């Protein structure tokens, strides 16, 4: 089902001031594969995504794109390669309306003039797909709810024709229905042969759509698991670094304490 490796990281390290955020990270993403990137808070997941997207430059290590080593200096570079990213902090322009944000940097034009009508039409279709209700696509995103903003950011990434899509906690703010739609979307992307990197803290979602699960811990690789040959407990203990953790304790309490 999965094709050849589109994106690979080799020994990537990144340091912020006195914090060594990433150390020697290795990662591979194949076409038609969903790689879930999981890890504790502050494990370095978002930093890794930003390094691939050209927001931060890695201090060491190389990024390989379809087998060739590439340098990604700026977000443009990543986009030109065909990497689309949904950032955890969304990074929308609050003063622009929904349409403006969706097409920012990739406006549809007619005779060099913005084709607002075409963009508006397409925005509505896109948002419907993700079954979100937004009062009007012409209101500034500043006045949207958290989930609505998140959907706008996800829809943004789908404009253009990416080869790899990176989603940093895309369903964090989403309702149950919207979450289901996004998971469906991830599966459709995979079926179309795109590589997907999905970051999530929700193990159920991860187990539902991922093919491979890569675990980061304290800025280092802490195992890559094949979905078919692992289970939730194994992954959680790789994330927390212990089999005895708050989660298991809570579960244990829940079981024994239930009336």
């Amino acid at each position, binding site marked *: 089902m999965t094709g050849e490796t589109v994106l690979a990281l080799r020994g990537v390290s990144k340091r912020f001031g006195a914090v060594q955020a990433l150390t020697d990270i290795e990662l591979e993403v194949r076409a038609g594969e969903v790689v879930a990137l999981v890890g504790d808070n502050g494990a370095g997941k978002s930093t890794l995504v930003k390094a691939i997207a050209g927001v931060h430059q890695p201090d060491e290590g190389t990024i390989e794109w379809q087998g060739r080593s590439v340098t990604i200096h700026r977000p443009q570079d990543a986009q030109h390669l065909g990497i689309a990213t949904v950032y955890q902090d969304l990074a929308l*322009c609050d*003063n622009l309306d929904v349409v*403006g944000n969706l097409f920012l940097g990739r406006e549809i034009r007619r005779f060099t003039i913005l084709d607002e009508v075409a963009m508006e039409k*397409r925005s509505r279709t896109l948002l419907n797909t993700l*079954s979100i209700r*937004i009062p009007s696509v012409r209101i500034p995103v500043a006045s949207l709810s958290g989930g609505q903003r998140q959907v706008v950011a996800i*829809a943004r990434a789908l404009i253009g*024709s*990416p080869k790899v899509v990176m989603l940093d906690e895309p369903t964090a703010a989403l309702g149950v229905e919207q979450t289901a739609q996004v998971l469906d979307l991830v599966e459709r992307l995979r079926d179309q042969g795109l590589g997907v990197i999905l970051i999530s803290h929700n193990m159920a979602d991860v187990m539902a759509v991922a093919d491979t699960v890569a675990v980061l811990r304290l800025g280092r690789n802490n195992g890559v698991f094949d979905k078919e040959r692992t289970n939730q407990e194994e992954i959680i203990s790789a994330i927390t670094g212990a089999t005895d953790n708050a989660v298991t304790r809570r579960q244990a309490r829940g079981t024994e304490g239930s009336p």
Partner: protein
Amino acid sequence: MPKGGVNAPVPVAPEATPAVDPRLLVRQEGVKGYLGEFRRRVTSGELGSLPVVLALIIIWAVFGSLNSSFLSAQNLSNLSQQIVGTGMIAIGVVFVLLLGEIDLSVGSVSGLCAAIFAVLNVTHGVNQWVALLSALVGGALVGLIQGLFFAKVGVPAFVVTLAGNLGWNGLMLQVLGASGTVNLSGKDIVSRLYSTIYGEQAAAYGAAAVGVLLFLGASVLDARRRQAAGVPSRPVLDIALRTVALAIIAFLAAYTLNQYKGLPLALLIFLIFIVVLDFVLRRTSYGRQVFALGGNIEGARRAGINVSWIRISVFTICSTMAAVGGLFLAAQIQSASQTSGGGNLLMNAIAAGVIGGTSLFGGRGSTWSALLGALVIGSIQSGMNIQGLSNAIQFMITGAVLLAAVVVDSLARRTQQAAGRA
């Protein structure tokens, strides 16, 4: 392999739900709905530039009642020319303000470029068109340099342009040379910018008619396309009302100008600049990206926008507009002097943008605010001059009126904030 592109990248889910929101208060059709909508906007403070227009009307009414010659055709006609220099500079400032930055060099740059033109054309006898072009290119170069320091080196725009303010002023003194003031010949293109007034009645009315028709045509075409594509469009009544309002203003202005000498070329050029640059800001990718940068730089960068290029180009536009404004100011006094670009020019140009409604914090504004702001400031000055008060009093009143003009706007926005749209 991924299919798609802008036209078909997303695999549409079959079970897509419609996005119409029952909570959106849709306006009723007809006049009643229109009034209701208007009432809602007034109470929630979404009035756009209406408060500034209101302030302007109050200013005019007060000065007009104090001295009848304020509202005379002659004075209003003079006013329409006097605001052009500052207004042109203010247009450039609006661009920079949209980025959330500031340009403190516009005064000096306007003086420098006026000096370049005058010295080349008058002192060295260079062809007027070449001299004009040199002045404009000079302005653009200044902006380019400042933009590079800001965007590439990362020096705060405030400091770059403050340094520029000094440096370009020094360069201007150097260009003017020892003899100082250079008189324009009065027959060159720049002098004519100010002295040309189209006296035929047809000119002013024609310009008004063209403006109104263009607006109407564009509105109708847009509404058609929208209806055809099935996206919400402006109702016919709305378009009609707006067109009528515009027509009233335009023809009233034309009538007043014709009462005196006719349509001043300076005013015409100013309006054309505003309309064209407004179009650039609102209807092109470039303009969209300028707004994006003003809203969220990091967001814009991640959207793949070339942030440095936008910044440099905006500073170049600003300085070029400063050059244009400088030429108009030189035309006004038919000379380039050592005081050119000094005094209150800088503050007036920035204040014009801000008073007209462009935010200092970026991402919100329009070139029309240059017109509105320049009108407010120009009217206060003109009214004060007609009053002929002592300077001490005049300063105090100017300050007070300036403040009052913006208080109207601020109160409207406060309602808006209370209504949660901040």
